[in-house]
């Protein structure tokens, strides 16, 4: 057993049976939830209460298991991508190709909105074009693994894929537009004047043990933090599943009310929430017959554009550029919302 004392084999020895258990439990989850609801709690299939309880017992563990697995996977994946590496990749890229890379790298590069300013300065000083930097700044908070997993777990892969596709397109196009507008002079002057005289970070070489631990740390951080939102979202979903007849909201938030998309975006801009916090609202709106495009637009404007982020960015951007940023991204979200309402 001596080899188990070495960190890496030990971690593999712990993770492998967990993965097998995950697959086994996930495959019987539906039957397990029905057994629990109808045989243990003696509820009748087909009744409102029975349906709601079965939905709750099925969806809660399902979403949690998906979230844990994907957060772990992305946690490990992200240990390969540092903002420094991303900057190096983007520094030599021209418009469009650079914007595509920036939007995609925004998904996998670790990002927290409190790092937005140092990241912005770091990018601009390294010669990353302004529009490319914006593609990254738009995609990083909006398209993330939590949004992906929650949408996938609650609404299926089509909604999740639509969200990611929409988010990436908006990041891409908005970045290109901001780049074309030549807004460089609306960045605070000191950003360009500043000289980088610090040292490169020494000794941050990561091993596979560090990467696995990083994944595990991400699970601990994220899953615990979003747990109450998920349970709230599923409770709302379960209640609606059992009782509320669909279609009543359709007139207000439905595809036929053209003003619903701009209204959803405008209400969403000053609001701030992470992807997990918005899910209960999304669940409720969709179940009441609101159109998918409208609801996804609302979700994106809440997550992607927010007052606190603008206050942080004000340190490096002049008001005009902030206004352009909000306008371009806001219009992008609206257009995508309209398109989805039209084609779905």
């Amino acid at each position: 057993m001596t080899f188990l004392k070495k960190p890496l084999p030990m971690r593999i020895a712990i993770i492998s049976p967990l993965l097998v258990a995950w697959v086994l439990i996930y495959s019987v989850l539906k039957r397990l939830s029905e057994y629990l609801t109808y045989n243990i709690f003696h509820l009748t299939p087909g009744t409102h209460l029975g349906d709601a309880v079965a939905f709750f017992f099925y969806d809660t563990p399902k979403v949690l298991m998906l979230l844990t697995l994907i957060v772990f996977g992305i946690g490990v994946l992200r240990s390969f991508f540092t903002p420094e590496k991303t900057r190096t990749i983007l520094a030599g890229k021209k418009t469009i190709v650079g914007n595509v890379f920036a939007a995609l790298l925004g998904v996998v590069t670790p990002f927290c909105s409190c790092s937005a300013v140092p990241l912005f300065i770091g990018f601009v000083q390294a010669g990353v074009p302004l529009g490319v930097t914006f593609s990254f700044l738009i995609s990083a908070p909006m398209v993330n693994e939590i949004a992906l997993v929650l949408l996938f777990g609650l609404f299926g892969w089509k909604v999740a894929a639509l969200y990611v596709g929409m988010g990436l397109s908006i990041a891409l196009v908005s970045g290109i537009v901001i780049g074309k507008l030549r807004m460089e002079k609306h960045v605070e002057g000191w950003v360009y004047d500043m000289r980088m005289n610090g040292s490169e970070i020494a000794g941050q070489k990561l091993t596979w043990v560090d990467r696995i631990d990083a994944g595990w740390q991400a699970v601990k951080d994220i899953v615990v933090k979003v747990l109450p939102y998920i349970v709230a979202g599923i409770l709302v979903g379960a209640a609606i599943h059992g009782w509320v007849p669909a279609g009543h909201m359709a007139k207000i938030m439905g595809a036929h009310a053209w003003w619903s998309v701009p209204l959803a975006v405008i209400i969403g801009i000053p609001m701030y929430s992470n992807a997990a916090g918005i899910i209960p609202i999304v669940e409720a709106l969709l179940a009441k017959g609101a159109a998918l495009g409208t609801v996804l637009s609302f979700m994106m404007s809440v997550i992607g554009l927010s007052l606190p982020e603008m206050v942080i960015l004000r340190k490096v951007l002049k008001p005009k550029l902030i206004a352009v940023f909000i306008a371009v991204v806001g219009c992008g979200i609206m257009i995508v919302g309209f398109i989805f309402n039209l084609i779905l």
Partner: protein
Amino acid sequence: MKKIQILGTGCPKCKKLLETTLKVVKDGNIDAEVTKVEDINEIMKFNIMTTPALVIDGVVKMSGRIPKPDELKTMLQ
């Protein structure tokens, strides 16, 4: 005496790193002066792109994450 600087604009992770560092310094009886740098201009002089960051005697040792107490202890000694 070591000069330890915690760089961060005031996000929860930065506060956590400050707390952890202060605890490690205290528990290990390390002779060090810990200061927090919150001014963005000062932070950017260290050429980092993610906060929080840990600077020991003017050298950036780590950025963008919170190290485990053991790891922090090794860095500080």
